[in-house]
């Protein structure tokens, strides 16, 4: 027995090292979120301390001008972000839902597989390419319709295209998880296709659908490149969909390169707003999932 001892000791040491290493990595992974939150807060503090919170709710963004050191109203850009994101979600959700219904229920297996592959490929196209395509293809088309071209509408269209795969894949997974027995029961009652889908399948999949929708909204609000390239980036509350707008994300991307002091801190404030928005959405998505698990 005794000659096995050293090896056993080593094994025990190895095991303990493994646990420690795994704990440290996990702590590091989790720590990144805290680190991001901490840095956003620390870097925004100068602005928050100097100006308070109220000026950020203002309508005017002149970060470098004026004798009083500039104006830092984020409201027009928040409106831009919400308008572009909301419009994109409103446009993409029905399309994504229909595509998922086709994939799961309506199409013959081979077509469904093909459509699934196309959606996965769409999901893999980078945002900068969507932005570029929007810039060289969509914007000129919109310009012909109603100048100037770079506009909220262009942003909505490109964003919708971008989040469509995310929404469709989530809806697909949620619909696939609907128990077959429910569909069989619906058929045994002589319910029609539409009633089976709308009355039974969608309600049965609702928690998964909500989760996907919330994550899609988060993605739309947080997207930078695509909207930066097609929205025109004028700081204003848009009157129509043909007006150019600037989103919070685009504002950071545009001005970070030369921002100093209070201006830089103000950009971090907008980053903080974005991070909070998205975190709330993610937590809400988790809550819908957890809620459905609690009441199966």
């Amino acid at each position, binding site marked *: 027995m005794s000659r096995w001892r050293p090896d056993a000791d080593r094994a025990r040491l190895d095991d303990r090292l493994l646990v420690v290493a795994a704990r440290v990595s996990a702590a590091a992974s989790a720590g990144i979120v805290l680190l991001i939150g901490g840095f956003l807060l620390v870097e925004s503090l100068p602005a928050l301390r100097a100006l308070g919170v109220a000026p950020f709710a203002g309508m005017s963004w002149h970060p470098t001008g004026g004798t009083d050191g500039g104006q830092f109203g984020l409201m027009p850009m928040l409106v831009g972000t919400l308008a572009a994101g909301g419009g994109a979600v409103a446009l993409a959700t029905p399309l994504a839902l229909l595509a998922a219904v086709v994939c799961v229920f309506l199409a013959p297996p081979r077509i469904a597989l093909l459509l699934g592959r196309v959606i996965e490929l769409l999901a893999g196209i980078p945002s900068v390419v969507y932005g570029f395509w929007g810039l060289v293809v969509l914007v000129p088309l919109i310009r012909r319709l109603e100048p100037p071209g770079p506009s909220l509408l262009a942003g909505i269209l490109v964003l919708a295209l971008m989040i469509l795969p995310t929404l469709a894949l989530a809806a697909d997974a949620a619909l696939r998880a609907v*128990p077959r*027995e*429910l*569909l*069989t*029961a*619906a*058929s*045994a*009652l*002589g*319910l*029609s296709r539409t*009633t089976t889908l709308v*009355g*039974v399948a969608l*309600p*049965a999949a609702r928690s998964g659908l909500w989760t996907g929708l919330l994550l899609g909204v988060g993605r739309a609000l947080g997207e930078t490149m695509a909207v930066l390239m097609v929205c025109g980036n004028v700081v204003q509350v848009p009157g129509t969909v043909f007006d150019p707008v600037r989103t919070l994300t685009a504002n950071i991307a545009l001005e970070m390169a030369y921002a100093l002091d209070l201006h830089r801190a103000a950009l971090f404030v907008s980053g903080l707003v974005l991070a909070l928005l998205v975190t709330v959405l993610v937590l809400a998505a988790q809550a819908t999932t957890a809620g459905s698990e609690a*009441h*199966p």
Partner: protein
Amino acid sequence: MTSQTHPARPSDTATDPAPDEVSRRLRSVDTVPGSDGVLCGPGCDCSDPAAPPAVDTPPALRIRDLSCTYCAARVSGEGHVAYRAVDLDIPARRITALIGPSGCGKTSFLSSLNRLTDLIDGCRVTGRLEIDGVDILAPAHDVVALRRRVGMVFQKPNPFPLSIRRNLELPLREHGVRNRAERAARIEAVLRDVGLWREVEHRLDRSALALSGGQQQRLCIARALVLEPEIVLFDEPCSALDPLSSGVVEDLIASFRERFTVVIVTHNLAQARRIADHTAFFWLVDGAGTLVESGPTAALFDHPHHPLTRAYVDGARG
């Protein structure tokens, strides 16, 4: 399964019917005119010379040479035969039980009766299946109308994840009951029918999933009845329930005699004896489900003609 002498015995077959149950059952058998001959198919040797030959009530379902094949792989062309060449008349407003070991095609047979087999890829049903003289297997036959006349209740309670009210409203709306008051009246009536009204009248708008298993199953029965079908199919409706709920559901089904034509698949032979007027026994022959023998329940259990039947119900008798 090659053994013909000692088939697998379901676990819960022991309980004997109470004496009054037996007499009631015998009475009910007596009330069926010509019942002895009704269920017999060709190849069945149960023809009793003493039985009255005439059949004066037409059967609810007339089944001739019905077969069902699952085509597993599209390439191979040959498939697994779920059941083969079934001839059976199902008497109207009586309870007919389908018994037999697992995998002998009972459930496939049951789902053929409302063409639920249409939903399964590669499943083909051939033969004749008549309700009121109309062959419902004809491709042009209106399946939705058929399923309205033939309700079905499944093994596992499967209420929709909606409110109790909405579960019953959905089929009503679908089949054109637009009047809100009428819908409410029918929902109440059908919930009273299944003995659920008192338990749920104050929480009709709560989720059906919050009900207990037995309540869920009774809701599913109510959902099948709300369309006022002529025939109700039950696929082992009690086997997923605890004994108490199982008893409640069984009594409920027994109470449907004279109101609906009931076809019930059960593994519980004692249950078949308790509630069924007629029983049909399925067995696996050459890898395909086959109807071996059918007849009035008491006759089939007490004087089975076919040795397979005898072995199977003897197993039940213990």
